[in-house]
């Protein structure tokens, strides 16, 4: 099967800065795919490479099997929802949505009717006459979505689409985007720095760091089996245990990750650790222990029986919860990037 988007050894360097460095990636048709990473990790540049706003300095990109190198943005069957929406301030909402059809030369009556349909799709029927300036952030986001979908793209690119919305609206839009994607069966590629958003929405995730992909996988794979310290640390807040400690615990010299929610309190057996501090989070309680000179964070039930700070408790976790990673087992702070 042809990939919807395929990166083949793609590099995009800006002078000495390697924004994207030797990227290989295949995104399947109909997938909801997240590019996740901290700012400056190359995820947005990758999205812009698909849109055509950037050209690769090396390698190439295929969109549905077709090499995209020579195709300018306005001839790619790919549309973008911009981070700050980029709605045209001099056009009404309806004209904004109809813009793509106007450029294609669709007659006025048809394109306005179609734009109205799309406004209904994003649950803004009757908003067509307003000016984008008069809309709330969430409404602008929907208009931007409708505008990007009007040309029926094969791939929809979303650049931090929910970044500017407040928490409640963001959760609601996550649901809506997800169900919209299911209904339209269009490939969605979205950029985010929010690991929670990536985990809850995407079918698959590519974790970026310093222009390279650290790991590609389903949310569960990424979360349960991070391949490197970077991924373990960036996706969820994992305890990263150094090789020395892991060697003592398992006999294998390697870095390991241990998810806070995998740590349990036991009355006997397990490992002895000193409680440093704890805080109440509502549904859960987060406790930080000193274990052999290393800090281990545990997410416990809210009613967990914790000792006084400074006293010892016994911690346990399942053998498979201690996930060994592929990093070079070098000790010390310089290895702890």
């Amino acid at each position: 099967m042809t990939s919807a988007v395929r990166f083949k050894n793609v590099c995009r360097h800006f002078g000495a800065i390697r924004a994207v460095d030797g990227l290989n990636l295949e995104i399947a048709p109909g997938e909801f795919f997240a590019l996740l990473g901290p700012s400056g990790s190359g995820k947005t540049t990758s999205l812009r490479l698909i849109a055509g706003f950037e050209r690769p300095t090396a390698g190439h990109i295929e969109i549905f099997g077709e090499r995209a190198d020579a195709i300018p943005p306005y001839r790619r069957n790919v549309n973008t929802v911009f981070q700050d929406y980029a709605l045209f301030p001099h056009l009404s909402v309806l004209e904004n949505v109809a813009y793509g059809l106007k450029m294609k030369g669709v007659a006025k009556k048809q394109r306005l009717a179609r734009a109205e349909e799309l406004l209904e799709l994003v649950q803004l029927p009757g908003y067509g006459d307003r000016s984008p300036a008069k809309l709330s952030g969430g409404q602008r986001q929907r208009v931007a979505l409708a505008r990007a979908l009007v040309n029926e793209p094969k791939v929809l690119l979303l650049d931090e689409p929910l970044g500017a919305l407040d928490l409640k609206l963001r959760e609601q839009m996550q649901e809506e985007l997800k169900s919209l994607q299911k209904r339209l069966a269009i490939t969605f590629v979205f950029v985010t720095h929010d690991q929670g958003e990536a985990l809850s929405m995407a079918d698959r995730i590519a974790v970026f760091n310093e222009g390279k992909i650290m790991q590609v996988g389903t949310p569960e794979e990424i979360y349960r089996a991070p391949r490197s310290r970077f991924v373990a640390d960036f996706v969820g807040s994992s305890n990263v245990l150094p090789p020395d400690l892991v060697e003592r615990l398992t006999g294998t010299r390697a870095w390991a990750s241990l998810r806070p929610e995998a740590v349990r309190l036991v009355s006997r057996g397990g490992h002895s650790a000193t409680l440093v501090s704890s805080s109440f989070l509502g549904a859960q309680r987060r406790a930080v222990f000193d274990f052999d000179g290393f800090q281990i964070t545990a997410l416990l039930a809210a009613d967990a029986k914790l000792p006084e700070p400074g006293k010892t408790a016994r911690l346990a976790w399942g053998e498979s919860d201690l996930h060994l990673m592929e990093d070079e087992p070098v000790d010390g702070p310089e290895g702890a990037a």
Partner: protein
Amino acid sequence: MRSDPNARAPLGLKLAAAAGLLFMHVPILLIFVYAFTTEEKSYQWPPPGFTLRWLEVTWNRVDVWQALWLSVQVATVATLLAMLLGTLCAAAVSRTRFFGRETISLLVILPIALPGIITGIALRSAFSLADIPFSFWTIVLGHATFCIVVVYNNAVARFRRTAGNLIEASMDLGADGFQTLRHVIMPNIGTALLAGGMLAFALSFDEVIVTTFTAGQQQTLPIWMLEELVRPRERPVTNVVAMVVVLVTFLPILGAYYLTRGGDSPAAAEK
């Protein structure tokens, strides 16, 4: 921090403000009054009588019409030239980063900071050096040096406010470069350009200093007025012309002011 907008100003401050405004505008009113006086040799106050005769006299003076026509032509061509070059320059400076960008920005603005007499002398010696005869076109070039600045300043501010991603959004939705220019860029910078053009026109229309150095035998309207002051013949004609100049330059400036008022410009409204 802003002070309370409802607070009343003390009487002294009000008087000072009124005096300042009067000082600026009463002399202009005097010009208007003298355009209707019956006394033609000297400016006598109060005017011995009022007449509309000078309007007719001015209307029939061929030299006035020639000077006016030349001024309109010069201002129009200089403004068009400035709109083209100023906009392109503003686009380059605001849309891309390149070595020496700040320097170019400064060099473009410099002519308006320089005293006109220096611009004038510099241009005159440059034209002589290059053996360019003084003509209509040398006046236009002289005026364009400062007209470009106004257009540039207006356009660069608007370009900065027109988010660069509007252009990307347009491209993304299938518009090529020309369509983007027509449907996105022009509507967003249009009013700024028009305002810049109007200011440039007004500046050019009443320019004296640079013109004296770059004109040959031609007389633009302000130059004509200057010469006329020396000759005490039908003096009120000059006042009638002055009135016309005030109107012709004031209206575009007023228009430019309304077009660029901060809040309701389209690009600013979205933020």
